[in-house]
């Protein structure tokens, strides 16, 4: 079944936490101040919000990969 996957470039990520605000089910900035990807293959219902995160990430560190 064709699907999609969230990819974060951790070399670019600076924990601005924009993504965590938009899709907290997928992105979390923890106490250590690093971003954690909670769900690499989120349900389709979240796709739109993950796309918002991709677009709004100021460092452009997030992408969606079709699998």
């Amino acid at each position, binding site marked *: 079944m064709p699907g999609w996957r969230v990819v974060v470039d951790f070399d670019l990520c600076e924990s*601005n936490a924009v993504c965590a605000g938009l899709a907290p089910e997928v992105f979390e900035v923890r106490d250590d*101040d690093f971003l954690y990807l909670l769900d690499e293959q989120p349900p389709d219902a979240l796709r739109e919000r993950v796309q918002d995160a991709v677009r709004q990430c100021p460092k*452009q560190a997030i992408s969606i990969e079709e699998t």
Partner: protein
Amino acid sequence: MSDTTTPYYDPYDFDIDADPYPVWRRLRNEAPLYYNEKYDFYALTRFEDVERVSLEWQTYISGKGSVLELIKSGLVMPPGNILFEDPPSHDLHRGLLARVFTPRRMAAIEPQVREFCARSLDPLVGSGGFDFVRDIGAQMPMRTIGMLLGIPEDHQEAIRDQIDEGMRIAEGAMPDRDDGYAVTMGSGFEEYIDWRVDHPSDDLMTELINAELEEPDGTRRKLTREEVLSYVGLIAAAGNETTTRLIGWTGKVLAENPEQRAELVADPSLVPNAIEELLRYEAPSPIQARYVTRDVEHHGTTVPEGSVMCIITASANRDERRFEEPDRFDIHRKIDHHLTFGFGIHFCLGAALARLEGRVALDEVLKRFPTWEVDWDNAERAHTTTVRGWERLPVLTS
């Protein structure tokens, strides 16, 4: 009635700077790629264009400066100033600071920021008025960045004034930057750095002195004294001036929108979005410049390699293609993102700090002064090439 003249934009013209939005609107509609003959630069004003250029750092570089007259001066930029660097050195240098200004770390200093506001504002309660810039905008950010860097309080003001002076420009001409502006950005801090080497503390300056930098070839080394100076100077300059102007705009725009101000007084949970809208509506740093490394085409015209491209972020924020009724200030506006902090690799490192300071300042002002009117006879604009706003914004409170 239509205006048949060609629109003209000049970043050094104080009259245009007083209200640049009408000319920027004309540029967006009539000359989306604008060329200024007098100073020989191109400018992009639409959101889509400004955002795209911000992302294409290989073509639009910062390594020759990111201010129009700096690029034109041909000065060699000193190392360590990430505003004037490109990858790979930019990424290495930025990496050292990237974890210092995260939203979480900034949230942790909120109580101190609140206290700095209280210290500035409490003595003014009952005095009939205050100055948004002098009394709070120029005070709290200075104390906050001074605290983070570890600068003694009694020296903070002198350092800030020196930075402000260095950025000021005269009317109607491109400033001559042979005065070493870029090179001496860190001056005034030498004595603290040398002292901190022997007296480490829990501050950013100590962190920088001890930080290890990884070179592109993988070797690790400590920062040179010049690099530490450069970092400290940049943080102090960026951390003072821009937020000062944001707080000035807050006083002006909310005075013009008293109903929305009353809403904020009644419901302080609206403050964060109000700050976001203020950032969109009056960007404190409205124009950035890049050096173009290859021939590029915009709107059917070729921009030759070696040109200077200005990207007018404050115009992008008012682009009617992106924002509905862009010239209307609306604290309830849903903002996907604005370009006030830039976008891409140079995205403002201090964004979380600026948002915090803007929010706390507005909160603390509203708690003490729910209404005010601007004393226009005594208001005064600030004139620098990189920052737009108020030098004095006195208000009358009842």
